[in-house]
Each structure stands twice: as structure tokens, then as C-alpha cells.
């Protein structure tokens, strides 16, 4: 039995550790790749060479998607503004939970799809959007809906969308650098060959290659681990607002019992939803390996943690 404050505290620490680890790893990877780059081109990269360019490219693309995240995601998912009359329950539950969480009322959207699911987006609480499928609104009772919406509101409250955007800037940066490094090696000039006898240079080169190959994958894996940790945090936050773990538990059970995939979701938006919209399952060693690439923690684990809280 862990009380909700302990759960939240430990979640905060774990999330902080993973995020710090991620940024440390990014700095190291970027350092080595850029060093190897500099060596390969035969000159020192002056502070803001390739890294700077990669940062700008990755930064701008993510900033745009971050700033317009709500509009882009809603457009992709085919969501429409929730009608307060038609979706009265949705509107009043969201309003009540906002009173409880001390947040401004988010914009509400619905997706016409019978697969129950929901997501939150928007860059900060003032521009937050919560979107639910009509399947979710039809299949859940009021208490269950409260659990799900409180989960989404916690994402908003914790600035998860902002965090995940910063993380994806870094992932994009590393991927770009690694990519450019290989392109330069394949097609670039051979100025470095005159310095091949320099042993230190060769070592840096090897480390650089290793980082260029592995770091995009590792960065993505850490990114997914952060995403899963934030899901646990949102579950705990949901309980803090509603104080009724049972509502979220039965909601998650209902959502995972429904095997219909959500057509409106795609790979780019999957991590936003309360539960993995693709519902693919695998077991054993393959399952463990596949779980490294999951945007969401396993449903069984989430439910058992929630049950400990009640």
C-alpha cells in the first residue's frame, strides 16, 4: 500500500532521472558525433558548426509542430468541436475536474469512432485540448469518464506535451547528425585521409561512428521510456483529482477489453492517447523486446498500480 503522495513523489523522481539521463546521453552523443565530424572534415568545428545547424533544423520543425500541435493533431485525427448539448456529460465532467485541478477549462473535441480512447494536446494549460472518441463517451459511466479525463488533465497540468516536444527536438537532432555523418562519409571529400596516422583521431572516428549508428535508436528508446513514465504520472494524478482509483481502473479495463483499433490514430499521434490505439499484443521474449518500443506501459501493470492505491 503506497499512498498517492508517495506514488507521485517516486514518479517525479523516476521521471526526473530518466529525463536527466536522456539529456546527458544527448550531450555525449552530440559531442562525439560532432568531434568525429570535425576530424573527418579536417578542421575543428567552431562551437556552432553542424550541431548548430542540426539544432536549428530539428528545433524549428519541432517548434512549429509544438506551437500548432493542437491544430495539427486535431486535423489529422478528424476531430470536431464537442457540442455541449450533445456531449453534455463530457462537458460537465471536464468542467468539474478543472475546478478540482485548478486549471482553465480546455477546449473539448470529439472523434467519431467507436473505439474508446482519448488524448490531450496543446502547448500549455491555456491552450489545452482534450479529445475523446464517441465510443469512449458512450461506453463509460460518469465515474469512469472522470478517471479518464482527469488523466488527460494531469498531462496538461504536468506540461507533458512541452516536455515531449523538447525531447523530440533532441531525438531529431541526434538522428539528423547521425544521418549527415554517414552521408558525409559516403559522398564527402577525403581530406581526412592525410591525417589517418593520427591515432587519437582514429579512435574519435570509431567512437563517432558507433554513436552515429546507435544513438538515434537509444535516444528513441529513452524517449519512449519517458513517455511511459509520464503515463504512470498521469494515472496517479488522475487519482489525486478524483480520489476514485476504481473509476480509472474500470475505464482502463473497458478500453483494453475493446479490441477494435482506432482508425483516426497513426504512429505520430499514438503516444498522445490514454491507451495504445493499435492494441497489438505479443508475449515472451518478443514481447519484452517489443515493450521497449511501446509508447504506453502495459495495461496490466497500470491497473495493478492503481489497485494498490485504492
Amino acid at each position: 500500500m503506497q499512498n498517492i503522495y508517495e506514488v507521485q513523489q517516486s514518479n517525479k523522481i523516476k521521471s526526473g532521472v530518466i529525463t536527466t539521463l536522456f539529456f546527458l546521453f544527448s550531450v555525449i552523443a552530440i559531442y562525439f558525433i560532432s568531434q568525429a565530424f570535425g576530424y573527418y572534415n579536417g578542421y575543428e568545428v567552431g562551437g556552432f558548426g553542424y550541431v548548430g545547424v542540426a539544432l536549428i533544423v530539428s528545433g524549428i520543425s519541432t517548434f512549429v509542430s509544438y506551437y500548432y500541435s493542437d491544430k495539427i493533431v486535431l486535423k489529422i485525427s478528424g476531430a470536431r468541436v464537442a457540442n455541449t448539448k450533445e456531449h453534455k456529460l463530457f462537458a460537465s465532467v471536464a468542467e468539474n475536474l478543472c475546478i478540482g485541478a485548478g486549471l482553465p477549462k480546455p477546449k473539448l473535441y470529439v472523434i467519431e469512432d467507436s473505439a474508446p480512447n482519448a488524448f490531450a494536446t496543446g502547448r500549455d494549460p491555456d491552450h489545452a485540448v482534450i479529445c475523446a472518441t464517441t465510443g469512449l463517451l458512450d461506453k463509460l459511466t460518469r465515474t469512469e469518464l472522470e478517471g479518464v479525463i482527469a488523466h488527460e488533465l494531469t498531462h496538461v497540468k504536468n506540461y507533458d506535451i512541452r516536455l515531449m516536444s523538447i525531447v523530440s527536438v533532441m531525438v531529431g537532432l541526434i538522428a539528423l547528425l547521425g544521418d549527415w555523418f554517414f552521408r558525409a562519409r559516403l559522398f564527402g571529400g577525403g581530406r581526412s585521409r592525410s591525417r589517418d596516422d593520427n591515432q587519437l583521431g582514429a579512435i574519435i572516428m570509431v567512437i563517432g561512428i558507433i554513436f552515429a549508428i546507435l544513438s538515434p535508436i537509444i535516444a528513441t528508446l529513452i524517449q519512449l521510456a519517458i513517455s511511459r513514465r509520464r503515463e504512470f504520472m498521469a494515472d496517479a494524478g488522475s487519482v489525486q483529482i478524483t480520489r476514485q482509483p476504481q473509476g480509472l481502473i474500470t475505464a482502463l479495463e473497458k478500453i483494453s477489453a475493446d479490441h477494435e483499433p482506432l482508425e483516426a490514430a497513426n504512429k505520430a499521434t499514438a503516444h498522445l492517447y490514454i491507451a495504445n490505439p493499435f492494441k497489438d499484443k505479443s508475449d515472451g521474449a518478443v514481447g519484452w523486446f517489443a515493450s521497449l518500443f511501446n509508447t504506453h506501459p502495459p495495461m496490466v501493470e497500470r491497473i495493478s498500480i492503481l489497485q494498490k492505491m485504492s
Partner: protein
Amino acid sequence: MNLTIILLIVLVVFVGWVISVYNFFVSSKARIKASIQEIGNQLKRQADLIPNLESSVKGYLTHEKGILEMLAEARKLISKGQDASKQISDALSGLKIVVESNPELKANTVVENLMGELRDTSDKVMYSRRLMIDLTADYNVKRVSVPSNIVANMFKFDELKGLETAESGEHLVVSPSEMRSPKVNL
């Protein structure tokens, strides 16, 4: 020279931290005040809404109840083998008025809506209290925990009460009658 720079940096960091903690306490207090007003706001909404809803639903129900009673009366007469045409026509004329103003008898949905509205209203009041309780708890925890308690003591931030509840009394004691599981009588 170097030592003074280090000391200066430490001082600046410390002052920055004191300011941020001080601001936390001050803004918490303001938020708690606002959350208390929100409770009042929700209570006012409840006081305005519920009696009005109650009377309008009551009006609905009496109307339908009258018609149903008339129909039951007519049915009783029929089962006794008596002529019930007068009762039926009375009931029908009443029914006509209701049907003209409302396409169908909807006491069911009316009551359902009332129940939803009742829960919604009490939820709103409950959540506004929850916010106040949570904010005061955050404030009070920060006030006593290390190291922010230094700032709290420096500027004499007092403990806030939150939702005033007696620390002892009946609500913390389970009486024998409460141990039995409740039975719902309808």
C-alpha cells in the same frame, strides 16, 4: 578575488531561491483565497439552481401522475365490468393537453436529467472544496518542510486551516449502526 566571486554567486543564487520560495507562499495564499471564493460561487449556483429545478420537475410529475391515476381508475372500473367511458374520456382529455404541449410522456427523462444535474452540482461544490484543500495542503507542507521552512519562518507565514473540520468527534468514530451495510428502500 576568486573567493569573492564565488561568494557573490552563492549569495545571488540564495537570494534568487528565497525570492522564488517567498513568491510561492504569497501566490499560494492568493490562490487559496480565490479557491474559497470559488466554493462560494458554486454554493450560490447550487442555491439558485436546485429549488428552481425541483419545482419545474414537480410540475411535470404532478401533471403526469394525475393522468396515470385517472387511467388506473378507469382500468379498475373495466376489470369490475363497469362502464369506464367517462373516466377514460376524462383521462384522455388530460392526456391530450400533455401530448399537445409535449409530444410524449417524459417523466423518466426529466427525473433522469434532474438526477444528473444534482450529481453535477454536488460534484462542482465538492471539487471546488478539493482544490482549496489541495492548495492549503501544498502550502502547509512547504511551510514546514526543509529547506523552504527557513523562508516561511523568516517571513512568518502562518499555517492555513483549509476546510475547517473538527479534529475529533463522531466523524472519526464508526458507530455500530454504520458497520452494517446499508439497505436501499424504494
